[in-house]
């Protein structure tokens, strides 16, 4: 045997072994799925088909919708979640395809029993809630995302004591947290400081009271802005009120509520000098207008621009108002565009800016560094400053 043959022999042996192993492989069909992949589908399904089985009214302005999985459409079970997370609902309203993020009001244990509850407040001059009021009834099918969002108690990150600051329907994620503390799925202490205009505007007040009676780990402070009643704090949620009810020296603040409350509370909280990371928010799509941003370029105010939208090989030119996000422009035009958190954060609406200029307010700019560098935008948090062209991925989940 010459030298090369000797040298190559172990390599040839390896190849022979490969051949032999493959030839003696089984011909049985390959597995289509595995337990870990099934766990992923249960925890993070691409979409969930829900059906309303009960509706409870809270006064004239709010309703709780009880959902079960719609097995006929393929949803066997509802996905588990962490108290504080939201669902993004997908709706077809008139000619628009829209999404709306709603925090889940029920608890993770309820989800294990295939129940979600969404408590929604009617916004009379809004777009989605009047539709919901007019159309949703027992038996209505609703399509939702998997649970998403980062406003939940993380024991390695958050203090053992949480102060929840809520306004209006922003109470819902905290109701879920309170309920899961009572049920023993979350091990933390929650002080809810809940701002409402009047006593009658308090949402889920009795239900929350009830929880505070059953566990001393949940406390409730109602703050009324338009009424002065004994036993209730009066005014807006201020640093003073937070300090008055702070449960311990070390605490985290979670905030969820309308834009106005959010901005006020943020200013107050800033005076408390908490370390970064101890203050966490869920904006739930309530950003408001870009015009109030300090660095908003005045020249674009109150303008309407031409927005050229490329989706795969199709191209359309639509109108985009400077005070509305590009996502809303897409939805107005009936384009099915991806979106989820509607607060700049999740990146589900990531699209490519081909030409033109868009404004992304700093406070909701959740883009990755490279996306800024290479001209990508989150349409839910981008406002047009000129005529522009964008490349939007299809929203195949809505197919």
């Amino acid at each position: 045997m010459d030298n090369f043959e000797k040298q190559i022999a172990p390599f040839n042996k390896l190849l022979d072994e490969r051949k032999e192993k493959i030839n003696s492989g089984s011909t049985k069909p390959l597995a289509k799925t595995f337990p870990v992949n099934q766990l992923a589908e249960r925890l993070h399904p691409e979409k969930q088909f829900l059906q309303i089985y009960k509706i409870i009214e809270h006064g004239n302005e709010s309703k709780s919708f009880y959902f079960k999985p719609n097995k006929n459409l393929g949803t066997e079970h509802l996905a588990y979640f962490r108290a504080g997370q939201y669902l993004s609902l997908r709706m077809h309203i008139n000619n628009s395809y829209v999404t709306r993020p709603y925090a889940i009001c029920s608890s993770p244990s309820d989800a294990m029993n295939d129940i979600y509850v969404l408590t929604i407040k009617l916004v009379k001059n809004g777009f989605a809630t009047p539709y919901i009021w007019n159309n949703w009834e027992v038996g209505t099918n609703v399509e939702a995302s998997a649970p998403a969002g980062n406003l939940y108690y993380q024991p390695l990150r958050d203090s053992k004591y949480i102060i929840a600051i809520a306004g209006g329907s922003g109470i819902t994620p905290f109701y879920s947290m309170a309920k899961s503390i009572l049920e023993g799925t979350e091990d933390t202490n929650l002080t809810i400081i809940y701002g409402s205009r009047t006593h009658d505007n308090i949402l889920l007040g009795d239900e929350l009271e009830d929880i505070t009676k059953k566990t001393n780990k949940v406390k409730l402070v109602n703050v009324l802005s338009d009424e002065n009643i004994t036993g209730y704090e009066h005014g807006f949620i201020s640093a003073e009120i937070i300090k008055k009810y702070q449960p311990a020296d070390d605490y985290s603040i979670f905030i969820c509520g309308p834009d106005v409350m959010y901005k006020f509370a943020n200013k107050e909280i800033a005076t408390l000098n908490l370390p970064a990371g101890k203050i966490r928010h869920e904006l739930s799509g309530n950003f408001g207008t870009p015009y109030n941003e300090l660095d908003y370029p005045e020249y674009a105010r109150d303008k309407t621009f031409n927005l050229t939208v490329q989706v795969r090989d199709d191209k359309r030119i639509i109108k985009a108002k400077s005070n509305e996000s590009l996502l809303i422009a897409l939805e107005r035009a009936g384009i099915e565009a991806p979106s989820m958190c509607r607060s700049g954060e999740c990146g589900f609406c990531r699209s490519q800016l081909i030409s033109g200029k868009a404004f992304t307010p700093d406070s909701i700019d959740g883009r990755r560094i490279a996306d800024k560098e290479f001209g990508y935008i989150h349409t839910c948090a981008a406002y047009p400053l000129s005529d522009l062209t964008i490349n939007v991925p299809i929203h195949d989940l809505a197919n």
Partner: protein
Amino acid sequence: MKTDYDVIVVGAGNGGLIAAASSAKMGHSTLLIERHNLPGGAATSFTRGRFEFEPSLHELAKYGSADNPGNIRKIFDWLGIDIDFKEVPDAYRVINTGKDGFDVSMPTGVPEFIKAMAQAVPGSGESIGKFFKIAVETAQAFSEMTTNPEQIDMKKIAKKYPSFMKYGTVPYQKVLDELQIPKKAQEILMAYWCYIGIPGDEFEFGYMAEMVVSYVALSAYIPVNRSHEISTALINSLQKNGGKVWFNTEINKLIVEDGAVVGVRTADKDIYAKQVIMNVIPDIVYSKMLDSKDIPVQEIKKSNARKIGTSGLLVYLGLNKSAEELGIKDYSTFIDDNWDSHYQFDHMKNIKDNGFFIMNCLNVANPGCSPVGTSILYATQLFFGDSWDNISPSEYPKLKDKIAEELITRYENATGINIRDNIEEIEIATPETFARYLRGPEGEIYGYFGQPWDQMIARTMSFVKEDEPIKNLHFCGGHGYLLDGYSSAYQSGLSAAKLANKKLSKETV
């Protein structure tokens, strides 16, 4: 035959990105289709609060310096990828927290590495010197073999690199024994096994030695703005050369006509192409995207003979103190209480006592990666995905928090550095997370496990023969001929593009 594109690439992971960008660069009309809304697969990033985290990359191999470029830098240059990389300052630190434990930091540069080893393990100098002599030759041979797997000349390689011929196919551990390297030095030299997930006593010397040399001699690199920057730059390159990308698009089926793949089917349309490159593990393609009548029996046998590779668990930490304030000096720290790689490997099969992990501090290699006064740490463990089989949805969140806490505790105990009081952001990825985003079977992140007959040498030498299991169909990715890892997947993408190109060129002649 109607065709919409010359080349369709399915999957925008590292392999698919390079395959698509390269096809476009070679002048072919190219469509890249990706299920997710982002490019990159594992090569992405995510933001939490003030931090943008690196999800998966530890060390990009074969990038090299401008003066001494590695294969990957050459490919990036060719594709016009113009982004900044940082050289990882040191090789690694190994802490053995068990009996006869040790704590050693190894530098880059072969002479420096040998010197540090001689200090850590007196009397190891000579054997380590021998090791590197063989390893460097092996690395050269490997590079020649794997750069152009479509034209391997073993005679030439044998002539130039006799050491490679002698040791290449022998298990790494066995070679270290043969060289009489002291046990402690062997343990230190074993650290990188986890990047491929093959224990040292099964890992062919050729590949493992090549990896050691590549990191120690050429250094490792990381992109300044996380892997998402590389992936986005590759999309940019694809588009500049006339290629297209469709995100959020799932391929349900490969269209086969007369025994050849002629296109792909999405939810709403069929798209035809002359060549199709799949950056999807063959198991998924064969179980979900093809009718059984169209799949060669040999391919089913091959998939059944192979083993699914490992998955992982990562804990990402955004800390509200800087690395300096915390006293962190090392980029990569490998920690376990037992440094027998087979022991470590065996413990990847259960959740309870999987001891081996790596802690990275991104700021050490990339100081500006997080705001002033903060730092990014991430811990990595390997787990076989099936070790998570019996976890219920309601147990899942608590389990991942528990494992994260254990890792933090073990890091604190091993280094004396306090982490838990400084956590501003935390995220935890598990085999479930990888199953969700990457969709591999069992949440694999390393493709197929490298059984001896299914490691780099056997795969590389079989590469051309095993290409096109069905006419016009090629594969690339971390399950490819170079096994897992960014540089491996990139290289496999280029090779797939070359094979497709060859077929397309033949057609026009």
